[in-house]
């Protein structure tokens, strides 16, 4: 009994419940024939939002005003650069991965340097950074569309034990993120900063150091996601990150992470990502177009934030 109540008080449970309902509704409409295929496709596409979402979650946990708008540009640049470096050779796969990670680290450092040196809000710092990164990506991407190495691309598109490999990677990343958040000193620190950055400072937490690491972490995860997405879709496209700007924020919010900061959870991002993709498939199955899909997505986000805000007011 108390276990049920305990479960109900977890904010992430709602996103999973919603995902399950939408899954059933879709499968039921197609007479059950699509159950397996739908699940696999959902896991595949959700995996990418999960990876960027986890990074964005760490940043949002830091408190009001903290948000990383450079996510899509980072994805594009790391995808293009990595593919270029690998140059369709299987032997270069790890080097490409390293390049992607380095791109992430560099952008993360750049982001925080702007925030700190120019004393500008993160939103405008990451925005100006994303302009520059985007240009850099356009410049490197010029010319032919480079394919990913054969081995990498088949890895990214295939399955282990019936589960997409990208979803397994997302699971691995999420597990590490969960341990960081719940068990490590770092997790405590970002939560403390998110609740009150001044109180955190007065409790002896190195606020700047922690925020710096968080912005780097977010950029690295976005870069990793760009690397995987480019390998998965057979090449890097300039607009490949575009939809992940709003998506990364949306899955964090729907997943039950407090927008006001200090309180976040990893499972919710899974529920929200699965849900977001399932809504798309359901509306497609029912024959609705992109317009209705977008409107519903927006209304869901607003409904979630209204419900979450209400909880806060009560407390």
């Amino acid at each position, binding site marked *: 009994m108390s276990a049920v109540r305990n479960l109900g008080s977890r904010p992430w449970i709602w996103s999973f419940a919603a995902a399950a309902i939408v899954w059933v509704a879709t499968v039921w409409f197609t007479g059950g024939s699509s159950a397996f295929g739908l699940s696999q496709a959902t896991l595949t596409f959700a995996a990418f939002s999960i990876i960027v979402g986890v990074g964005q979650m760490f940043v949002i946990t830091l408190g009001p005003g903290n948000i990383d708008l450079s996510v899509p540009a980072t994805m594009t640049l790391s995808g293009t650069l990595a593919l270029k470096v690998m140059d369709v050779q299987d032997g270069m796969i790890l080097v490409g991965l390293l390049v992607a990670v380095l791109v992430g680290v560099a952008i993360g450092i750049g982001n925080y340097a702007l925030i700190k040196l120019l004393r500008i809000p993160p939103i405008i710092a990451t925005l100006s950074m994303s302009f520059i990164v985007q240009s850099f990506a356009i410049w490197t991407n010029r010319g032919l569309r480079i394919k990913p190495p054969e081995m990498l691309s088949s890895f990214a598109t295939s399955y282990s034990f019936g589960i997409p490999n990208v979803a397994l990677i997302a699971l691995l990343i999420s597990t590490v993120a969960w341990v960081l958040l719940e068990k490590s*000193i770092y997790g405590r620190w970002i*939560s403390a900063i998110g609740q*009150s950055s*001044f*109180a955190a400072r007065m409790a*002896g937490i190195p606020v*700047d*150091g922690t925020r710096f690491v968080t912005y780097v972490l977010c950029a690295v995860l976005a870069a990793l996601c760009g690397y995987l997405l480019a390998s998965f879709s057979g090449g890097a496209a300039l607009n490949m990150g575009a939809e992940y700007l709003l998506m990364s924020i949306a899955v964090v919010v729907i997943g039950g992470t*407090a927008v006001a900061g200090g309180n976040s959870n990893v499972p919710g991002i899974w529920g929200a990502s699965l849900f977001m993709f399932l809504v798309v498939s359901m509306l497609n199955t029912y024959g609705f177009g992109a317009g209705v899909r977008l409107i519903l997505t927006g209304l869901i986000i607003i409904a979630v934030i209204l419900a979450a805000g209400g909880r806060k007011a009560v407390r």
Partner: protein
Amino acid sequence: MNEIAHEQEVVAARGVKVAFGAVRALDGADLVIRAGECVGLVGHNGAGKSTIVNVINGGLTPHEGTISYGGEVAQGITASRAHGVRCVFQELSLCPNLTVAENARVMHSDLTGTGWRKQALALVKQQLSDIFPGHTIDCESVVEDLTIAERQMVEIAISFGAVADRPRLVILDEPTSSLDAGLAGQLMAYVRRFVEAGGSVLLISHILGEILSTSNRIVVMKDGKVVADKPASQFQTRSLVEAMGSVVREQGSDRTARVRTGDAVLSKQLNPRSDSRLEAYAGEIVGLAGLGGHGQTEALLEIYLSANGNWWPTREPKMAFVAGDRGLNGTFSLWSILKNLSVSSLKALSSRSMISDGREAEVGDRWRKRIEIRTPDMDNPILSLSGGNQQKVLFARALVTTSKIVLMDDPMRGVDIGTKQEVYEILRSEASAGRTFIWYSTEMDEIRLCDRVYVFRDGAIAAELVGEEITEANVLAASFAGGVAV
């Protein structure tokens, strides 16, 4: 009831009681202000000055007692404004991004019509040169471009100014805190003229000279009550300071001054303009006294922030900080009691940056017993605790660390007496074990627990008292400008 007397009353608060939790801020205070008089209001920290001001201007509803404006019982900000009560708050309350004239527009809603800008400009200009003749404030400049003194002048001018109905009572809460002597003199002269013309003023100031020379009547408050209410002519500086102190003959410091051993563990010059240093030795309890808001918290923050890095984690922090304002810079409201307790000492409770649940719980248990946090489960949310117990958790947070110096920013404000005694006990034992405490307190009882006391005034150290010298009279005398050591 005498009709005429009532007509003359601008504001009357009678038998007012206000309590914040366990603390009685006002305990049956009476304050009547009549037309054509300037009432000086003095008292030490926690005497109830700000509370009674808030009651009069309608910001606070008393739990008992009545407020009447011009003989008519009413309540609320709107009612008090309608009866011509204006208030210049201690903290500046202008919009920094607007010009002086635009701020007048915000404050006076009757400045309407197309010519409002011209009208507002004329109003502020007129009022400013009435109060501060010869001032050089450009009324078309943005408030944030003005100096602090100029902002205070503008705020005062706007409050005294009027479009349609003139203010009948202006409350001035430390109006000269950023003005130099010349400007303060001009303001006081204006107050006298305003009063002669039939207006009334309630003046709160830590500069006793101002109070004595400007007020017609002086009201002294202590412990939420009015202890003296006499014409100003019957007071002198000395008798005023005495009236603020305890009636009973007080005892001196509870502690004998310790023999200092070794070098100071802390020595800091706080104010570049004065060469007085704040020093502390191992095992010492150093008190920071004086009226609230005279730079004690800033001093603690400066000491703390200059000692703790913001980029790299340190294994052994040099100092720990106990916050006074729990909601603002103390507790993490989303967390459990245990997490709030352990946040400053996570390094010691973890291996390879991973927190050990067992060790954390063990420390939590130990401290729950030691300082008697009243909770069935340390995993309960921090907000489930009473204010006093939350404060104990913050206190324990600092003591769990290995820090040799603990800074305390008036942490016992609003805590019940039982809890206080428990904390004092721990404080004494920790000090004798070699820890140094630097303790800002607004309560005299706590100041008496200290080995040595620095009294702050206007952001600087005004006096240093050691051992037997630590008496309420000495602290009061040093807190008020113009006060003499008794």
